[in-house]
């Protein structure tokens, strides 16, 4: 527990990522609007991307491209950046599918508010969506 603040401030990109992740979690849990839940998921994804890309960085290093640097330059780690390209594609796919589901829900129920969707579902079918079978 001693010297907690210096260790946190040295790792300020990771700290920012942790704060972003908590903001995303809180948004997903508390907002009834489905678009805002999706925004929270995207904020959490951004936090993960920030963690990975920051872990590959070196202070004073240059981007890992041969053409732009002199011979004795220190290149940053190219592997986390390459892995996060894959992550960004998955993030875009998940976001697109979730948006499609939200549009479909809006067409059926006329709202994107999760509480109203549950209420209308109960009115129409007598089922609150949580009962078994």
């Amino acid at each position: 527990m001693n010297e907690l603040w210096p260790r946190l401030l040295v790792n300020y990109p990771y700290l920012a990522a942790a704060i972003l992740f908590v903001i995303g979690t809180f948004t997903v849990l508390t907002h009834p609007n489905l678009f805002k839940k999706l925004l929270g998921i995207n904020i959490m994804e951004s936090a993960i991307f920030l963690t990975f890309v920051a872990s590959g960085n070196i202070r004073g290093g240059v981007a890992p491209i041969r053409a732009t640097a002199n011979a004795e330059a220190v290149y940053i780690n190219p592997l986390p950046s390459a892995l996060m390209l894959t992550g960004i594609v998955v993030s875009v796919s998940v976001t697109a599918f979730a948006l499609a589901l939200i549009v479909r829900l809006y067409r059926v129920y006329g709202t994107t508010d999760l509480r109203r969707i549950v209420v209308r579902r109960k009115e129409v079918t007598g089922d609150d969506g949580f009962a078994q079978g």
Partner: protein
Amino acid sequence: MRFRNLCFLALALLVAYVAIMTVAELPPYGRPDNPVHNQVAERYIDGALTETGALNMVTAIVLDYRAYDTMFETIVLFTATLAVVITLKTGKGGGREQ
């Protein structure tokens, strides 16, 4: 509803505590001797130009060393597109709005 939000706040504070304690234990940011910069990264940095001919090492990794990963990534993208079209164009409430 207020009680629920208080529960969620407690949960978020728990997540924040765990994340911040993890950040405090991580190796210092930006040092060249961090365990992330091991022999794998060295191999990519030293061998990318001679082994693949790409000047950009990220391009070399994505399109050459991990080409299968990129290929199946396109399948992920294709499946997502397919799922979006199926979700929006079929079934009850699908197609054009009434």
